[in-house]
């Protein structure tokens, strides 16, 4: 959180939980960690070489509140945050994290909950499944992964909730039967999706097409800031002009320049970093999931955590 205190933690344990997925146990360097609700995430600051990358990761720890667990998928063609976590972070490494934030809470006024996970999108559902079970709320977790070796936590979840967890594997030709799941659900059922962008879009669309109101359809997607050509940003209120590099987000460049800008999720989801565009000499490449299509078209706002400019200069009210 931009105004919240950051927390210094030390990596106390690293476990390989699936192919290319490692779990990191984070212990506070002093004091106790805040409690968090199911579905919460933290933003981890990664000091990779000369840059500070901040990536959101869902909290996956259940039971022991003395530390936080996060699970990180190594993605090769990204900005390097997850590669750094996998290759450079070891037991004892100190990291800086944000306070926990929940943009994907369970709707507790619901009657039944269907959790749909694709790949690393399983992470928020680990705490959610445990919370729903402890509240004695009906739920099902449907979890699709590419193969058995990539299905992190599949076995432990199946063991914990044998009747409520359903596993699917691409290499075995089994897939989440979304259309069947959307049929014949009692009134008050909520659906939650987390996984690859294409899966989220397809499932939400299928939900609407099945006559579900949008209030019953929930998704969490964090987008990594897109890369692109460098450009400059004029900060009108601070009277500064800064450069945004190829692999940097506007928000990161603004912070590097010592200017404070509001943010929460750093993944184009929450809307906290919405910024007024004063002028721009090119096309804004919107990558977020927050702005309405009308607002995007008008070019008056930009979500600086993920979106950028295809042009030379963008003037922002910062």
């Amino acid at each position: 959180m931009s105004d919240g205190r950051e927390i210094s933690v030390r990596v106390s344990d690293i476990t390989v939980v699936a192919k290319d997925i490692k779990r990191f146990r984070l212990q506070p360097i002093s004091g106790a960690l805040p409690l968090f609700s199911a579905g919460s995430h933290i933003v981890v600051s990664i000091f990779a070489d000369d840059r500070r990358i901040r990536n959101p990761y869902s909290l996956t720890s259940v039971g022991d509140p003395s530390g936080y667990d996060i699970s990180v998928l190594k993605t090769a063609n990204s900005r390097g945050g997850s590669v750094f976590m996998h290759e450079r972070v070891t037991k004892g490494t100190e990291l800086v994290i944000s306070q926990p934030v929940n943009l994907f809470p369970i709707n507790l006024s619901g009657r039944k909950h269907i959790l749909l996970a694709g790949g690393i999108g399983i992470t928020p559902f680990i705490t959610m499944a445990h919370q729903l079970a402890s509240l004695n709320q009906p739920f099902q977790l449907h979890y699709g992964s590419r193969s058995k070796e990539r299905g992190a936590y599949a076995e432990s979840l199946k063991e914990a909730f044998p009747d409520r967890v359903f596993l699917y594997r691409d290499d075995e030709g089994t897939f989440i039967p979304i259309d069947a799941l959307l049929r014949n659900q009692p009134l008050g059922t909520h659906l939650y999706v987390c996984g690859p962008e294409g899966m989220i879009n397809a499932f939400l669309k299928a939900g609407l097409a099945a006559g579900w109101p949008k209030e019953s359809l929930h998704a969490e997607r964090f987008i990594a800031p897109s890369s692109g050509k460098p450009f400059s940003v004029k900060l009108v209120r601070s009277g500064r002009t800064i450069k945004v590099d190829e692999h940097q987000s506007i928000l990161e460049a603004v912070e590097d320049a010592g200017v404070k800008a509001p943010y929460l999720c750093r993944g184009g989801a929450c809307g906290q970093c919405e910024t007024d565009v004063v002028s721009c000499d090119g096309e804004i490449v919107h990558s977020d999931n927050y702005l309405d299509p009308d607002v995007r078209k008008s070019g008056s706002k930009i979500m600086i955590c993920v979106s950028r400019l295809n042009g030379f200069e963008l003037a922002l009210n910062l």
Partner: protein
Amino acid sequence: MLFSGIKSRPLYATLQPDPFARFNLVLVQGEGVNAAVRLLECAGDQFRMRTTILYAGAAQAADRMRSFQIQRMQFLPTIETLLVRVDGFLATAMMGTRLYTAGTEGFMGQVIQHAGNYFIDHKSIITEHCGSLARRIQCIHCRGATENVTTNVVRCSHCGVDLLVRDHYSRRLAAFMAVSADAEAPGTLPAIEKIFR
């Protein structure tokens, strides 16, 4: 008074068909017929085949709804009997059911309150305000509800306290809150005006 800036004060839109809904339950009261007719005019045959209308109000006014090919239409003598019928539908309803309601605020408020018992999110109910702005209020002192209040100050129909009607709305109670109007200076009431016409 419909837009006072108090956040709890509900706002209403216009009835629009959800083309994807498997089953539409349209709950209409009094002048809500006008909104229901507009909804049926702009909806296709497919929509009308999947629609049930429950109507509480004067039988004559409903004639305009009869001309459409509705799957089912029922007339109920009062809001209370209509709500009992709604229970019958929602008790076994599945996802894909869409609720629409048109009429006075008091009526729509009770529909939304009722639907909540069946886990329906109030934001997913499509509403259109028609007819009088008369309010259903709750006396915060004795908790009694009074219907069809049109004045800014009204005597509680249960405990007899003179009440000031506020814009503060309770979705749970389906009523505007009303507080003692002369608590500070007993017997001194503000000018009584008819403002909820």
